[in-house]
């Protein structure tokens, strides 16, 4: 990250200029196959000798339990909702992402702040506050957006894990049942993601394609980042220790 910078008001106590790694965010609504592709990307990168760290939404040590609890108790206000995610993100940013970037790792982020921005906007109709809150986020080197249309998404989710309360935005009471609510909520999210894709220059991949085609596209988008600034470690590959993630 040669010209690393913060999204807004940054971490005043942390200078982002010495971050050698690359930050790649994979965005997309629920059920587009983000985590499968991240696993495959990690494998692909590690085989080439790059150190890879993955980080996932709500997976921080500090907050994962808290967010589970909050979801069980149905938090109602949009502020706490976004602030809980912001805290989780800040914890991972400072304890995982920045240290890894500083050591030259490639960080693959399963979802990034754009997820939070979309969710907050759908709940409030206001973009400014959430963007201010997440001002301390690093701007990623690359954002891959796995785009899907809501019709395909609905079929896919029903075929696999089914619809849950939060992915259906049931707190917003958008529809009469889980199905209607899911469809309405996810359409709103996709609509907002599409707008952000333009504004923040996401690389868009059609998530309706076959997994092989998608993976190939993602790799093609990541490849230029590797050649421009990162060199494969010069250590012999058998001495290169893999990071535990």
């Amino acid at each position, binding site marked *: 990250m040669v010209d690393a910078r913060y999204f807004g008001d940054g*971490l005043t106590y942390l200078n982002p200029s010495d971050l050698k790694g690359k930050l790649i965010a994979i965005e997309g609504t629920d059920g587009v196959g983000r985590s499968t592709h991240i696993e495959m990307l990690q494998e692909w990168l590690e085989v080439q000798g790059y150190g890879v760290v993955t980080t996932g939404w709500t997976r921080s040590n*500090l907050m994962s339990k808290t967010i589970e*609890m909050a979801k069980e108790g149905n938090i109602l*206000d949009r*502020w706490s909702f976004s602030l809980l995610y*912001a805290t989780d993100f*800040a914890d991972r940013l400072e304890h995982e992402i920045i240290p890894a970037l500083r050591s030259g790792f490639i960080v693959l982020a399963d979802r990034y702040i754009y997820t939070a921005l979309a969710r907050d906007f759908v709940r409030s109709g206001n973009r400014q506050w959430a963007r*201010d809150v997440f001002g*301390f986020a690093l701007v990623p080197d690359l954002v891959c957006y796995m785009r899907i249309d809501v019709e395909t998404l609905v079929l896919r989710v029903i075929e696999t894990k089914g619809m849950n309360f939060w992915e259906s935005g049931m707190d917003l009471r958008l529809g009469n049942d889980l199905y209607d609510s899911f469809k309405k909520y996810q359409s709103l999210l996709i609509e907002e993601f599409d707008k952000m894709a333009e504004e923040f220059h996401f690389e868009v991949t059609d998530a309706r394609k076959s997994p092989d085609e998608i993976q190939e596209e993602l790799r093609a988008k990541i490849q230029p980042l590797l050649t421009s600034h990162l060199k494969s470690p010069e250590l012999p590959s058998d001495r290169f220790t893999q990071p535990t993630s």
Partner: protein
Amino acid sequence: MSTQSTPPMTPHPYPGKLIIVEGIDGSGKSTQLLLLHKWLESKGHKVFFTEWNSSELVKETTKRGKKNKSLTPTTFSLLHATDFASRLYHEILPPLKAGMIVLADRYMYTAFARDVTRGVSPEWIRKLYSFAITPDMAFYFKVPIEVAISRLLGGTRGQFKYYEAGMDMNLNQDVTESFRLFQSSILAQYKKIVDEFQLITMDATKDIETQQNDMRLLVGEALKDYKPRRGTHGRRTVFWRRFDVPKSE
């Protein structure tokens, strides 16, 4: 929802009254608020009380983070904002909308003073709290650092806690010295905040009764045109809150 990106300076639109106190640990603000609470209840008001960092969900998390010392200035700040948001929504706004009185021990100004001292951006923290409402009355209990220290050490607490003394900032190995340095910078931040948000400054070195009389006079004046609202008939819940050891985070 408003589109401003700093805390509002205009009065809130609700029929209730929000009165808050601010000051460093050992300033005596909690004692004063408790006495005010008793007085208001004795006058027949229904009063709601809310305290900084007290929502169950966040308190547990803060405790966990403090225990393994993994909190950073930003996560510390965001956790307190989450707590505040959840209390604003659940504890502060409903009584205010119903026309009742809410007393808050610490408000967003605590974050402006403390989190900025810990190193977060002053602009960022103000934007973070832009969803807050302006209190009807905000009292700042001003006390010199030495008075606060002797009160705290002479009282029931005996020893300063890790984060209260700002030990996470590596200011000094000695807890009391660290407390002195940390709370002094907080005092300096409060000084700016008092002007910026026009808090009412109280001389917290005066004795308890004098301060309380001053406070009651000011509150009485501010409530002159306020019409109390309550659902129960004349049942006064006086003396339900006892003095206990003041808890600060």
